[in-house]
C-alpha cells in the first residue's frame, strides 16, 4: 500500500493538467467518409480483407439495427447521437502495409504509446521480470501486438481480431456472437455491423498463459467512433489474465465508443478480465468526453470454470456497461468487482448480470460507486437463479459514497430466485464521506486532498486488491486523480 504515498505525490504533480492523456497525435489517417450505410460496411470489410460470411453477418446485423431503438432505461441523459455524423473507420496511413515487427511501426505511434506509459518494447524474457504482452489499438486498427512469437510457443494466440479472421477463421466463426448474439441490444448490434478491431485470444487446453495480456485502446481522430470487438476463448483447464486500458484526446465534441467483449471459459478454465477505463471524461463544465456504451459478457460454458471481471471506471462522459456472467457449467464461478468514479458532470450506469443456470454455481459482486461534483452514478445489477441451479450462491455488496451535495448515487438491483436450495444475499449502503474520518486524518497531518485520497482508496480496497499487481498502483493513482477538486 506504499502506492498511497505515491498517489499523494502524483496528485500534486498533476495539479495543472489532470487528464494527462488528452493530447492528440498528429498523424495522417486513412478515413472512411462520415455516415453509416451498406457501402461503409462493405468498405470496412474490404479494408480488413474479410471472408464473405463475415460481411454477411455484418449486413444482417445492420438490417436488424435499423429497426432497433436506442435503450432509454438507463439513468443517463445525453444529447441524441447522430449516427450519420460519425466516421466509422480511421487508421494511420502508415498502417496500410501492416507492420510485421516493432521496427516497422511508425515512430510517431511509438512515441504516442511511450507518452501514454505503455510498454511496446519486447524486453528479453529475463528471470524475475514479469512481462506484459500488449495489443495496441489506435482508432480502428491494431497497430502492433508484442510478444506474439513468445506466446505462440506456448500455443497461445494473441492477435488483432482482424488478423484472426484471416489466420484462424474457423475459431472466429465458431465463437463470435456465441455469447453476445449479433442483435443482443442496440449498441451490440451496431458493433456487430461496424466493428473494426480488437483483440483475439485463444488459450489451448491445459495452458496457463505465461504472461499478462493487455490491449490499450486509443481514440485519436476527431468525429470518429471506436467499435472494438474482443473475443477470448479459454479451453479446458487453461488460464489467462487480460487487461484493457483506454484513453482519448480532450475534445469538445462527444465521441462514441461501443464495444463488444465475449469471453468463453470451458471446463476448469479461468479468465480474469480487468479494465482500467480512463476515456476522456469531458471538462469540468461537462463539455466533450466519450460515450462509453459497452456490452461485455462471459460464458462459463464448462463445469468448474471461472470468469472474473474487475473494472476501474474513472473516465467517459457517459458509461453504460454491464459485464456479465452466464454460469452454465456446474460449479462455475462468476465475479464482478467494480469501482466507478464519477466527478463533475460524468454519468455512469454500470453493474452486472449473474445468470445462474448450473448446479452449485457461485457469484460474487462487489461494487463501489463514488460520486462527486454534479455526477450521477448508478449501480444496476441482476442476479437470476434458474430453477435448475440447485445449491447456487450469490453474495452482493454494493456501496456508494457521495462527496458533495449536488451529486447522486443510485442502486437498482434485480434479485430473482427460483430454486429453494439457492442462497442469495444482497447488501447495499449509501453514505457521505465522513467528516469525522477526514478530521482524524488531518489531525494526524494529512492534507484534505491526501485524506480524501486515502479514505476513498480504503473504500475501494476490496476491488483494488483484485487487480493484477502491475495495474493496482496505476488504478490507485487514478482513483485519487479522478476526484481532484471534489472537496473544499
Amino acid at each position, binding site marked *: *500500500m*506504499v502506492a*498511497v*504515498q505515491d498517489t*499523494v505525490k502524483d496528485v500534486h504533480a498533476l495539479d495543472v493538467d489532470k487528464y494527462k492523456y488528452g493530447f492528440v497525435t498528429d498523424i495522417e489517417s486513412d478515413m472512411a467518409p462520415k455516415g453509416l450505410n451498406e457501402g461503409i460496411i462493405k468498405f470496412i470489410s474490404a479494408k480488413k480483407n474479410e471472408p464473405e460470411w463475415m460481411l454477411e453477418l455484418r449486413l444482417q446485423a445492420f438490417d436488424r439495427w435499423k429497426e432497433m431503438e436506442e435503450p432509454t432505461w438507463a439513468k443517463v441523459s445525453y444529447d441524441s447521437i447522430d449516427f450519420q455524423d460519425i466516421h466509422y473507420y480511421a487508421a494511420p496511413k502508415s498502417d496500410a502495409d501492416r507492420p510485421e515487427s516493432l521496427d516497422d511501426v511508425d515512430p510517431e505511434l511509438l512515441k504516442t504509446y511511450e507518452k501514454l506509459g505503455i510498454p511496446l518494447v519486447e524486453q528479453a524474457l529475463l528471470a524475475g521480470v514479469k512481462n506484459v504482452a500488449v495489443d495496441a489499438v489506435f482508432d480502428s486498427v491494431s497497430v502492433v501486438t508484442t510478444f506474439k512469437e513468445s506466446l505462440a510457443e506456448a500455443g497461445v494466440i494473441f492477435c488483432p481480431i482482424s488478423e484472426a479472421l484471416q489466420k484462424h477463421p474457423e475459431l472466429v466463426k465458431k465463437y463470435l456472437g456465441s455469447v453476445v448474439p449479433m442483435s443482443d441490444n442496440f449498441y451490440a448490434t451496431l458493433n456487430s455491423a461496424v466493428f473494426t478491431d480488437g483483440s483475439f485470444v485463444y488459450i489451448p487446453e491445459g495452458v496457463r498463459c505465461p504472461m499478462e495480456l493487455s490491449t490499450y485502446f486509443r481514440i485519436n481522430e476527431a468525429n470518429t467512433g471506436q467499435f472494438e470487438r474482443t473475443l477470448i476463448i479459454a479451453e479446458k483447464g487453461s488460464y489467462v489474465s487480460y487487461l484493457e486500458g483506454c484513453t482519448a484526446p480532450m475534445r469538445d465534441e462527444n465521441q462514441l465508443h461501443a464495444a463488444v467483449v465475449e469471453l468463453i471459459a470451458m471446463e476448469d478454465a479461468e479468465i480474469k478480465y480487468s479494465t482500467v477505463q480512463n476515456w476522456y471524461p469531458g471538462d469540468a463544465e461537462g463539455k466533450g468526453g466519450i460515450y462509453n456504451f459497452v456490452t461485455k459478457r462471459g460464458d462459463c460454458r464448462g463445469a468448474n470454470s471461472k470468469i472474473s471481471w474487475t473494472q476501474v471506471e474513472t473516465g467517459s462522459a457517459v458509461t453504460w456497461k454491464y459485464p456479465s456472467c452466464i454460469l452454465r457449467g456446474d460449479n462455475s464461478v462468476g465475479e464482478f468487482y467494480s469501482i466507478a468514479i464519477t466527478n463533475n458532470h460524468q454519468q455512469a450506469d454500470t453493474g452486472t448480470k449473474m445468470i445462474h443456470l448450473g448446479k452449485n454455481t457461485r457469484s460474487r459482486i462487489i461494487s463501489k460507486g463514488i460520486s462527486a461534483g454534479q455526477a450521477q452514478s448508478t449501480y444496476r445489477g441482476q442476479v437470476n437463479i434458474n430453477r435448475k441451479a440447485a445449491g447456487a450462491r450469490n453474495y452482493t455488496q454494493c456501496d456508494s459514497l457521495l462527496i458533495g451535495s449536488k451529486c447522486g448515487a443510485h442502486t437498482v438491483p434485480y434479485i430473482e430466485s427460483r430454486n429453494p436450495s439457492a442462497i442469495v444475499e444482497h447488501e447495499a449502503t449509501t453514505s457521505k464521506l*465522513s*467528516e*469525522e*474520518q477526514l*478530521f*482524524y*486524518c*488531518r*489531525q*494526524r*497531518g*494529512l*492534507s*484534505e486532498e*491526501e485524506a480524501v485520497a*486515502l*479514505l476513498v*482508496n*480504503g*473504500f*475501494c*480496497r*476490496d476491488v483494488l486488491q483484485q487487480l493484477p499487481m502491475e495495474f493496482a498502483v496505476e488504478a490507485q493513482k487514478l482513483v485519487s486523480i479522478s476526484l481532484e477538486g471534489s472537496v473544499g
Partner: protein
Amino acid sequence: MLEIKNLHAEVGGKEILKGLSLSIGDGEVHAIMGPNGSGKSTLSYVLSGREGYEVRQGDITYCGESLIGMLPEERAAKGVFLAFQYPLEIPGVSTMNFLRTAYNAQLKARGVEELDAASFLRMVRAKADLLKVSSEMLKRPLNVGFSGGEKKRNEILQMALFEPRLAILDETDSGLDIDALKLVADGVNALRAPDRSMLVITHYQRLLDYIIPDFVHVLSNGRIIKSGGKELALELERDGYESIVSSAA
C-alpha cells in the same frame, strides 16, 4: 509553550467556551476536569482545529505562534497531537499504511526527508511492542474491529511515533478496564519529557492516579473556575463537582 487567553468558542452558533484562559509550560502535565457538557471536548477540538468549532474571541499562542486559522494538518505538523476520545474506524486502510502516510506527511511539511519503508517498519515495531500492539493489529484496517483498549493503545502508539510537543488526551480513560488503563498510562508516562507538554482531559480522577499531573483545572460552563495541584483532583473526587462549582460561583 501554550497560552490560551480569554478564549470564546462556538459550535453550531452556540457558545461553549466562555472566556477560558490557561497557560502550559514546557514539559508540564495539566489535567482538565469537569462535568459533562462543561466544554472539555470542545477545547480539544478548538486546539486541534476541527471545522465547525469557531473561535469568536481571545487567542491561542503555541510556541510563540497563534494557532487560530491554522489547518488541522498544519497544527499536527507543528507538533499538536490529539488522542481522540472515540478513535475513528477507517475501513480498507491498514493501520501500518495509515501510520506511514501520516508520518511522512508530517516530515514533508517540516521539510525533513521521508523515512524509507524498512526503517519506518522497524521503528513502528519497536514502539508497538512496548504498547503490546501486535503486528497482526498493524495489518488490520485502522481501528476496525479493535476493542476499546486496542483503539486507545493505537492512539498512544501514534503519539509515541509522532513525538508531539503538545499532546492532548481527550478522555483517554473512557471505555478502559483497569489493566488496559494501566497499560495506556504507562505508555503516556514513558513519553513524558522536558520538551513535551500534555493536556489530560478527564471526567474522573481515576486516570490521574496513573498519569500524575503537575496542575489540575476545573472546567465549568466554558471557563476554568478553579486551579490547583494534583490534590485538587482528590478533592473533586471526594466532594463532587457540585460543591466546587457552587462555591466558585
